[in-house]
């Protein structure tokens, strides 16, 4: 199947920054989760997901993000989001993601 999701990542100030592009569905969620696990097992416990280029997310994609939040909480880590589309931000709010994750403007805001 041709897929419509890509991501890039880098470490900035000990924060894993994942930039997504495309539909965050099962495939997108899996890719984010895999990228997260790879760095999480090496001790990274702060993650910023930049979803500027993702305008659509479904509940399967959200379930992967919730798992990431739970794993980070175990290690006293945090998940951050930036550049959210207003519809996605509202959905995250309703789904309770902001009880544990935070919204920031850039990686520089993360201490």
């Amino acid at each position, binding site marked *: 199947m041709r897929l419509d999701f890509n991501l890039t990542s880098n470490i900035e100030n000990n924060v894993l920054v994942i930039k997504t592009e495309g539909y965050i569905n*099962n495939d997108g969620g899996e890719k984010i989760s895999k990228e997260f696990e790879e760095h999480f097992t090496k001790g990274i416990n702060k993650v910023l997901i930049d979803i500027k280029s993702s305008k659509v997310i479904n509940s399967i994609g959200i379930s992967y993000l*919730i798992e990431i939040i739970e794993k980070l909480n175990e290690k006293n880590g945090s998940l951050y989001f930036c550049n959210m589309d207003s519809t996605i931000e509202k959905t995250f709010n309703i789904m309770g993601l902001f009880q544990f994750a935070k919204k920031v403007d850039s990686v520089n805001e993360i201490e």
Partner: protein
Amino acid sequence: MDIDLLTEKLSLQVQSFQESFEMLSNSFSISAMALAFEKIIRGNFVTTQTSIYYRFSETSEWESLVSKNDYDFAKISKFDFPVGTKILSDQDSNELVIITKLNDNSALAIILGSRLSGEKYSDIDKVTLQIFVQLFDNASQSFLLRKNEKQLIFSLNNKVAQLNNLIDTGIEISKISIGDELLELVLFRAITLTNASFGRIQQFDENKLVDEIVFPPNIVPGENKVVSQIGYSFNNANYRLELYNKESRSGIIRFDETDELLINAIIKQVESAIENKKLHKEALENEVMKSELAVASEIQKRILPDVLPQIKGYDLAGINIPSKEVSGDYYNVYTLKDGRYAHVVADVTGKGMPASLLVSTLDASLQSYLDMQTPLSEIALKLNSIVFNASTSDRFITFFIAILNPDTGEMEIVNAGHNPALILKNDNSIYKINAGGIAFGMFDMGLPFDVEKLTLQRGERLFIFSDGIPEAMDKDENEYSDERLEKFFTINNELSSNDFINLIIEDVKSHANGEPQSDDITAIYLIRNYK
């Protein structure tokens, strides 16, 4: 064993149980729980190795959670699904095996390898292992409860998000016009709400595909494996929404009734928005039309006479009853500078603003030419030219004018395509005035209009009317007819002009018998008195 030592050992064991339970309970999965459990077991029994196996249900197979050799797996595979708890000790290999059915009807099997100390497993060890397995069972129940609770909260939050998304979609749909932007919005929301992997909206024109929007954009539905799909046509089959492959964490599943409800709700919102926009457009057009009619009506009011002039020695009456708000008919009686009177009845094809403006032009031009005492044949030619140039090819005016010298009763008459006016002679015979030419505005080739001259004798009556009278219809579309009009004209030869007009209108209405007036009714009735 010394009592104190036993008490201390038991106390440590209880503490170990509590810590173990806490560790197991905080696990994120059965696998993670098994890994933690293996550490606990090995710490307590100091074994060479420990293998843990799990069966989700009676119908599933054993799966390895923690195992470092195939030998143990082969051994466990021989065991049936347990009814309760079974502990087996192998005296030769010094292994301890426990197989138990857990509370959620899954099963757990543990193989403790020989102890590093070489000691054999005692009965107390068997009991201790049973207690640990019970701990695992309780912790797994706790884990499953928490997992179910999380799933329930997630599901509830998701329903709220779906509902909220649906409401927002309705609001957004109402804001934008039908087009690619609206269709994209509908597709995005439908895909998100149903967890579809991809989808498309196709637009048809008489069953021919004219446009297609696909999301994600680089997906080609025909080239991707489709496991489940759902599709709806809407807006009289002009559009079709198709969604493919409903996602779940365990793979692609079928679209369900909730998906159908959600899609139906979105489609109804789109159809409602399309209908509302159509109605809004119609309302605006109606508003424009009403406004035009109001202006046209105002123009007409200024053209039609409030009162007709009193002509000495004559009895004159006129009427105009529009069939709709603005009449296409027109009449007037002008007093000329030389003491004559011009009686005019005209009928414009069409109604509304264009007809009113045309009549207004005709009226202004006519008055100017009458004031300039232009000969009637020339007036007719000039008016024809003006109407021809001022109107479209489908619009023309039938026109009747009779200029009366009141002293002599002499009349100059032009009839440009209008119904023949009637004169009731003193012998009660009818004379039809046909003189003239074609209606104004049909051609502009300089064709002359015949001017008929005749004298209205004392006692004689002139009736100029529009086709709204003879062509008035009843419910079976039977016309009032020229014959009935002429008969009425002949019989009612004693009435005053006002009474005649009123009575013939009543007769026409009686013929129509409640049917709506099909055309404008306009008439002038002139009697030359005996004195």
